[in-house]
């Protein structure tokens, strides 16, 4: 086992870096690898500038999308891995507690009010956090509030916000706002800008930082609450911190990408099969695999067809078969 892992770590580290550079080559306007490297270095060495067109394509069009895909993929994946640990279930995804539908409703509200892109993003982020907070508070209001009550409140709140989204769609102007809401819900990175990315950087950095700090203790919580407590961990508090950090990260990601399913479920799964269940390695590895996966998906979404395929559709269409294949190959571990 240990010997086989020697080559895995460098692959996992370099995969997103290689994909990062390759992604600049993909697109309608052909740019060579040399041109990409030179243009990327041109802010520091102005003499490397090739042409203003290439500079604009690299920095204004391709760079924001690439960074966004990396951030969103890494965020959803690490949050998924953390949730799978604290809920002791390898089939859990980061929107378990209602964050996606909450964010979706926030975005729908902003679209209905004809708000700017920035407001759409802020409302999506805020409502993602609100929905998880409601879920958590409801589960706490029950005396017997354990994991199961928390998960069930998540299902309920998620369904509730889904109903609100449907309500928003129902009253939306069918020629203008309805398509905009629908398109947002499908998930896409096509309208990402560097400003939008800067806005989500801070919550994502804080959330990922917290999760990485806690990662060894996640192992202990995944042994069950009683064992965790007998090993000196306060299970409720620990779970709350993890949920807060994961929600921060997921809401921020969803606020610029819309709803992108399956990444937070499939990527931690794949990563666990590669590096094993120890969260000390699993969490950082999920960041890397998640970033690579979504970057690849986004490259496909903008090149497969003349009209862009929404990212959420692609991640599901490709994620589901991968997931089913994984189930077949490796699920015996959890039977």
């Amino acid at each position, binding site marked *: 086992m240990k010997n086989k892992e020697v080559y895995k770590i460098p692959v996992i580290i370099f995969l997103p870096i290689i994909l990062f550079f390759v992604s600049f080559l993909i697109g309608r306007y052909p740019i060579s690898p040399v041109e990409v490297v030179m243009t990327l270095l041109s802010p520091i060495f102005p003499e490397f500038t090739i042409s203003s067109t290439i500079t604009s394509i690299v920095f204004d069009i391709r760079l924001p999308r690439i960074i966004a895909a990396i951030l969103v993929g890494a965020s959803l994946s690490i949050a998924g891995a953390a949730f799978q640990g604290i809920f002791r279930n390898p089939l859990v995804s980061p929107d378990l507690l209602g964050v996606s539908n909450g964010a979706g409703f926030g975005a729908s509200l902003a679209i209905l009010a004809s708000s700017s892109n920035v407001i759409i993003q802020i409302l999506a982020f805020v409502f993602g956090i609100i929905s998880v907070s409601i879920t958590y508070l409801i589960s706490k209001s029950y005396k017997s509030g354990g994991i199961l009550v928390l998960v069930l409140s998540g299902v309920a709140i998620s369904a509730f916000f889904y109903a609100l989204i449907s309500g928003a769609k129902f009253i939306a102007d069918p020629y203008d706002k309805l398509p905009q809401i629908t398109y947002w819900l499908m998930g896409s990175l096509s309208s990402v800008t560097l400003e939008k990315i800067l806005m989500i950087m801070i919550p994502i950095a804080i959330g990922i930082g917290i999760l990485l700090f806690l990662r060894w*203790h996640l192992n202990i919580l*995944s042994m069950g609450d009683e064992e965790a407590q007998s090993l*000196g961990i306060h299970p409720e508090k620990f779970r709350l911190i993890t949920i807060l950090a994961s929600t921060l990260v997921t809401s921020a990601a969803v606020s610029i990408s819309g709803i992108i399913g399956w990444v937070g479920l499939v990527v931690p799964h794949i990563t666990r099969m590669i590096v094993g269940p120890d969260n000390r390695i699993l969490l950082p590895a999920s960041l890397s695999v998640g970033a690579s996966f979504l970057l690849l998906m986004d490259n496909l979404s903008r090149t497969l067809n003349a009209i862009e395929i929404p990212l959420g559709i692609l991640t599901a269409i490709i994620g589901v078969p991968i997931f089913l294949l994984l189930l077949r190959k490796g699920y015996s571990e*959890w039977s």
Partner: protein
Amino acid sequence: MNKLIEAKNISFSYQYGESIFENVNFNIEKGEVLCILGPNGTGKTTLIKCLNGLNNVSNGEINIKGKSIKQYSFKEISKIIGYIPQQHTPTFPFNVFDVVLMGRSPYINLTESPKEEDIKITEKALKTLGIYNMKDKEYTNLSGGERQLVFLARVMAQGTEVLILDEPTSHLDFGNQIRFLEIIEKLAKSGLAVIMSSHFPDHAFSSSTKVAIMKNKSFIDFGKPNDVVTEENLKKAYNIDIKLLELDNRKVCVPIKHI
């Protein structure tokens, strides 16, 4: 002041439900092994979980090293008391080493990971129990006996003074039961206090210094094995006739068949 754990008149009942046990008294010192016997559903597990704060008693007081359990944090308790639950539902296939390493959790800050010293202590615990060779195996693929040894190694890595075991032998075969009890006896001789529940009165003779018999919400007797494990008490506890036989200076319990 040698009392590691002292239970004074403790009772437990669920919020709106019936009481599980009432007015239980006992204490345990260094090097002692307390075996709690009793039929299914008398509340042995509930009682045991009160001792390390997994359950909170409704009445009475539990003192750990002379101080009320309420004054301890979970972390402080976990440095004194180790616990192996009766049932463990595995989720992720951690390898044996990582499971035993978890025993170091009370000494590692929330934001940190285990250090060189923790790894050494973990290796030592694995070697002491003779399971170092399986350190890279997935603990989910082990047999019941091996897995119980892994959990025992984890508690040893935890470095506690008291060991609480909830029916530790119930999933083990005949040979492993005896081997496990021998390890427990050795640990007690090295200074650990052990509290365990069991379904086998014989275990009380073979490895315990104190025995409690629990029935109808309370201890019906508590004391040395020879005084407590009597034909009379066993009949009261299990409602069957049991004969005590002497075998090589040791007593064994034999149930008498009902006709």
